[in-house]
């Protein structure tokens, strides 16, 4: 089912089955997938990485938040094929291989920042990015920059406290895992 369109310089190959090279939680893999497969359905239905959740499948809840090249995105709004050559980090990839929790994960436990747990993976991943972006500065900023993750159990004050606490801990221990810098600079 390949259709070839000639252009002046190169040839685009439109394919229904797409090869994608992607690194997920430090594991490099090459996948051949239908083009329409979302990153979220790749993770949950094909790779067994079910920590990332599907709440709305339209970018309106944030439960599917993952890091792509260090930036938080909604996996439901991302085609797996669009992640070619990129690094994806899911909630399963945050703790150290030895099992030590990421400071954000520990802070969520310490502040009781979740209840049912279904939004938690998205919240935690989003919070890791929120800290790395430099948006975990004060309560109002955290509340705004964590608003892309709906918690129906409504642990919002505890989430805000956890994010601020984790940011403080990570500032004191800069070697803490997951402190990715934003990949795009604003030059």
């Amino acid at each position: 089912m390949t259709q070839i369109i000639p252009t002046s310089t190169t040839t685009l190959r439109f394919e229904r089955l797409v090869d994608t090279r992607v690194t997920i939680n430090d594991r490099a893999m090459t996948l051949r997938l239908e083009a329409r497969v979302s990153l979220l359905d790749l993770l949950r239905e094909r790779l067994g990485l079910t920590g990332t959740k599907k709440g709305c499948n339209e970018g309106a809840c944030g439960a599917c938040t993952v890091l792509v090249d260090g930036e938080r995105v909604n996996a439901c709004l991302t085609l797996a094929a669009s992640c070619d050559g990129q690094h994806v980090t899911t909630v399963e990839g945050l703790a150290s291989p030895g099992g030590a929790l990421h400071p954000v994960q520990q802070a969520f436990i310490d502040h009781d920042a979740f209840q049912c747990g279904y939004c938690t993976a998205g919240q935690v991943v989003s919070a890791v990015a929120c800290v790395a972006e430099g948006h975990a500065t004060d309560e109002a900023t955290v509340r705004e920059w964590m608003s892309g993750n709906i918690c129906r159990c409504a642990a919002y004050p505890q989430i805000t406290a956890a994010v601020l606490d984790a940011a403080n801990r990570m500032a004191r221990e800069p070697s803490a895992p997951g402190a990715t810098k934003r990949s795009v600079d604003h030059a």
Partner: protein
Amino acid sequence: MSPPDTIGIGAPIPRHDGRAKVTGAATYAGEEVPAGTLHAVLVPATIAAGRIVSIDTTAAARIPGVVRVLVAGDFPALKPAPVPPVAGSFVPLQDDRVRYEGQPVAVVLAESLEAAEAAAPLVRASYNRADPAIPSHAADVRPKAGHEGNGYAFAELDTAVGDFEQGWTAARARVDQRYRTPSRHHNPMEPSATLAEWRSGGAELYVHDATQWTYGVRYGLAAMLDLPPGQIHVRCPYTGGGFGSKGYVWPHQILAVLAAKVAGRPVKLVLGRAGMYTGAGFQPAVEQRLRLAAAADGRLTAVAHETSSLSSVSEDYVEFAAAATRTLYASPAVHTQTRIRHANVGTPTAMRAPHEGPGMFALESAMDELAWELRMDPLALRLANYARTDPTDGRPFSSKKLREAYEEGARRFGWAKRPLEPRQLSDGRARVGWGMASCIMSTFRFAATARATFGVDGTVTLAAGCQEIGTGAYTVLPQVAADVLGIPPERIRLMLGDTSLPETGGTFGSSTTLSVGSAIKDAAERLRAKLEELTPDRQGWAAALADRGWKEISADGVWKPHGDVAFDATGGSSGYSMHTFGAVFVEVAVDEALGLVRLRRAVGGYSAGRIVNPRTAHSQMVGGIVWGYGQAVLEHSPMDERYGRYLSKNLSGVMLPVNADIPSAIDVFFVDEYDPHASAIGAKGVGELGATGVAAAITNAVWHATGKRIRRLPIQIGDLVG
């Protein structure tokens, strides 16, 4: 009666399942998939009433990967089922009737989720359309109750104490207003999902279900399938929020099971967000009339509360919105009436907080209006009408420390500084207002069983078939056993969410801690007796088992409400009126130019029996306040009645509170209390209590800020502008 010494109950310990939840290791329904599983997608009806004339599945079946498209004739006939645990007597795809928009009219089965989703919109149904019964035109009817009704009419529909007319006529001040709360949806973050697998040649059914009640799923399916309940095994170690939507058995569960039977393969059916709007219940719109009359000193002389809630055409779901009014305030005359209206909509169900949730908006708004009529402080009015016994049935309360909640809440909030008149406070361009309301919730109690096992390694394993829906069951229930056995809670593990474990009621109605906790206490006490027979020295228990070559020793426990019934609400035959109470105080800011209201701070104080884990309980109450905020300011599911369809069946067209809506200044406290009657552990429920009263506190604060009285929820921009 004072609480016993404790090493477990009362300790604010972190969640046992915290690590599993923050690492993504906790598995929810449909996340462990056996080989060969088919993906199912439901095809929704596009009309609200009528009959299916034909269904063209040709285009859908042609999609690569599609295995079957099942329509009505493909499913075996079902037996009638009890309602509840089944949410409704009407089961789609048993015949050609369409009774609500979104009703499943076909099921697509495919090898991949993508194929099933691509095929579903290609299934074309043609209908013989009938005029639907429209919610806003529906007439009030008395719901079926007693032996001719179903489990939804669990309380008296109408109550009458005293002479209303006399109290009304004699009064100095009166309020007679109508209040409206909208239909709105639970929208737990996890959509309903069912993984169904038949094993042993079709003799045994295994279901991994997103549910609040594994046993309810077993019994509902057993009745419909005409199978012995023991052949149906239902599992759900984690439920991704429910709030009532996963309490009962809905069509998707039975359709997944039947599809697996027909296809001869495991089937995974995730309802999806759109499906959650028509196939998992909702809180029905409630129309209410509230009449309050009072003497000059504020004492109520007459109270009347009439309510009418929406239901589907097939079921008599009842929202007991006047429940709170029967109990909360002392009055010589208290009359309540409960009616429903039928329309072509999906069947409603209980939603946090049912009954008192919609009802308290009316009662607590009317109390605020009455306070202003009397030029009285709203808290003083409530104190003037403090009920020492239940005003409707005369029973004493099993425990009640609402006065302490009022007083401490007012102190923390600084309520004494509140100007009586509206429009007195501002901050920049915003008008600021303070409002308060009482909170009250019926105490639902279910019979429960549990098992406690002491292992030779010195650890304890508890087992109970209840659910973890976020309330902290994995953490809280071991705390109960810790006290009995003198073993720290971190060495006690709970197994739950499986019909192979001892039976309990559903995890809803804020009932699990008190009910299952009581059964666990009984099991732990029996276990301790057995262990003490071996040796009275707790330190020697493990060795005593080892000496005998035993791996473990178990004991079963049971707890039932008074009269050994399976369920009661508000005390049943105990001789006591059982409720939880509270007071909530809020400050809002209103921008009258832009029509916006924002929450600035809140204080909530609760009289809710003994608090087993203050940390998880605190989170529950904060969550309740946020739910109340959503009810007041954001949440509703408007319907285009021409089509009988919700305008939006998603999360982009429906607003739920986000982090930026909720200030960190939410101060929650519990009054020190032990209820010796409601359960064996002094506890009552907390989860729903916190969601009551809040909406009225917010609209009362909006009135205080602006002088504008909101009697229809949610608050609209147009209500505030100008």
